[in-house]
């Protein structure tokens, strides 16, 4: 069957997390990412048919924050625009659906985050975390903890402890996950390597979470351009196909959610695999970029994505199964632990990272060819939402 309306990525632009954003305004960051994406696709603003931006009010300090970002993605007065308060991966999903409906469209999907604009210790993320929780049953407790700045780490610790209880993963193995990702990022930037001992010697925030096993917030922006296969032929870049998408969200009650597992990821993956015709993800997926907001979450996610049998996780870490040259490289880009976490942008960035590796233009390409790649997003404790996108070369 000829699928002329298969959706593909034809342009991408990124302001990398951790770069120098001093003196660059939030709107400018996103403009830079979008300009790069348009240049990558070889198009100008007049060709944009619709624009979707993802942002989060509290993290950006602006109510209805997307109003401010629409200008930066060329979306003003376009026939279609959508503004979402979720990870940018969801802007990709919405853009995907728009192109399915109208294969002639060129859609811009984007997300931006500038946590460095928040003033105070640890950029006030604990306040945002608490503000995102139910105000009746959860927030009063979170607002009375003696060290509010440790709240995120304690939540992470609750999740990690539940995971370690059911797996046989030790603190040292978690450190190995962090080392892999930190060194993947360092390999690309030429920074010195980190050792397991360094991770285990980094400050303990709330056992087993340490300074180096919890991703820190970074400024970043990411823009992708989507269109149909038919339309892509007119453009200059080889398209990267979005062959499957899926997303799912757990219930809102913090105490009723699953700890140490990710049923939302499992459900999202199931949908995406069904669409992409993937039956054995561990054999068919060449490379994955998943949320490693905390080191243990990478493992929870690879298990939920079906990339590793939960009974084999320990062995896989010990054998380097997720390393750059392993059978399924995970977070070759460095992930969130290596490059930094840009809430709202991190998931869309994972899509960009996978697309770069399928195109073969990543700066840190592995020795193998990547034909099918997977990108995953997780909303953290503020939003128990997972998204999965399967990308392919053909």
């Amino acid at each position, binding site marked *: 069957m000829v699928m002329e309306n298969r959706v593909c990525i034809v342009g991408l632009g990124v302001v990398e997390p951790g770069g120098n954003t001093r003196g660059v305004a939030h709107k400018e960051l996103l403009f830079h990412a979008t300009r790069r994406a348009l240049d990558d696709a070889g198009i100008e603003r007049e060709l944009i048919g619709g624009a979707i931006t993802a942002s989060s009010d509290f993290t950006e300090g602006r109510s209805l924050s997307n109003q401010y970002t629409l200008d930066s993605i060329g979306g003003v007065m376009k026939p279609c625009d959508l503004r979402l308060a979720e990870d940018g991966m969801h802007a990709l999903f919405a853009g995907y659906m728009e192109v399915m409906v109208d294969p002639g469209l060129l859609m811009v999907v984007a997300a931006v985050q500038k946590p460095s604009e928040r003033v105070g210790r640890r950029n006030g993320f604990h306040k945002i975390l608490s503000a995102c929780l139910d105000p009746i049953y959860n927030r009063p407790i979170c607002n009375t903890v003696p*060290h509010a700045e440790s709240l995120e780490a304690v939540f992470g610790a*609750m999740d990690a402890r539940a995971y370690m209880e059911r797996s046989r993963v030790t603190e040292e193995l978690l450190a190995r996950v962090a080392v892999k990702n930190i060194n993947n990022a360092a390999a690309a930037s030429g920074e010195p390597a980190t050792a397991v001992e360094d991770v285990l010697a980094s400050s303990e925030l709330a056992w087993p979470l340490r300074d180096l096993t919890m991703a820190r917030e970074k400024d970043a922006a990411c823009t992708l351009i989507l269109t149909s296969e038919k339309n892509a032929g007119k453009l200059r870049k080889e398209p990267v196909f979005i062959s499957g998408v899926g997303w799912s969200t757990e219930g809102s009650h913090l105490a009723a959610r699953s700890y140490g597992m990710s049923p939302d990821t499992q459900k999202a993956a199931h949908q995406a695999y069904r669409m992409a015709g993937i039956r054995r993800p561990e054999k068919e997926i060449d490379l994955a970029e998943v949320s490693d907001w905390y080191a243990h979450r990478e493992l929870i996610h690879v298990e939920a994505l079906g990339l590793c049998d939960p009974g084999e996780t320990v062995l896989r870490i010990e054998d380097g199964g997720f390393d750059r040259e392993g059978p399924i490289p995970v977070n070759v880009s460095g992930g969130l632990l290596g490059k930094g976490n840009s809430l709202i942008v991190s998931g869309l960035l994972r899509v960009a990272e996978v697309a770069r590796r399928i195109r073969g233009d990543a700066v840190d390409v592995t020795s193998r060819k990547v034909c099918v790649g997977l990108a995953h997003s997780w909303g953290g404790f503020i939003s128990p939402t997972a998204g999965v996108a399967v990308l392919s070369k053909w």
Partner: protein
Amino acid sequence: MSKKKPEMTIGGTIQVDYEWSVGNAGERFFTEIKDHKRIMGARCRTCGRVMVPPRIFCEECFVDAIEWVEVEPKGTLVTFGDCYFSTDGKRLDEPWILGIVRLNGADGGLIHFIKEAKAEDLKIGMPMEIVFSDERKGHILDISHFRPVKESE
């Protein structure tokens, strides 16, 4: 050494105050805690699960047919996180612990402080109980904390 030009920024804060309604289910839940130190759950008449915290509808069956049932203030420890360090890295004399407890016979759970226990003595799955505050005013902090069930009891 040349001095870096300071970044030009504009400061600001957003502060908005709210009074959140606890809703019909919350009103019953908090009133029973305040007046009788009783934990009430909402049982879905369709699937039979008992929801704590209670709500007036079951999000699984999507019906608002519930009945109120009393739930024992005891349950099992789902997970916990302990903080031994202040954010500047100093070891705390008094660590604090948050935990999630699933009450016996109920679905879901409550998150609260764990006290009267050291983190090293806690284990996922162990029996826990609710300790109510002496002074109660219809609030989640009318529950003072969870503690492990004492063996003599």
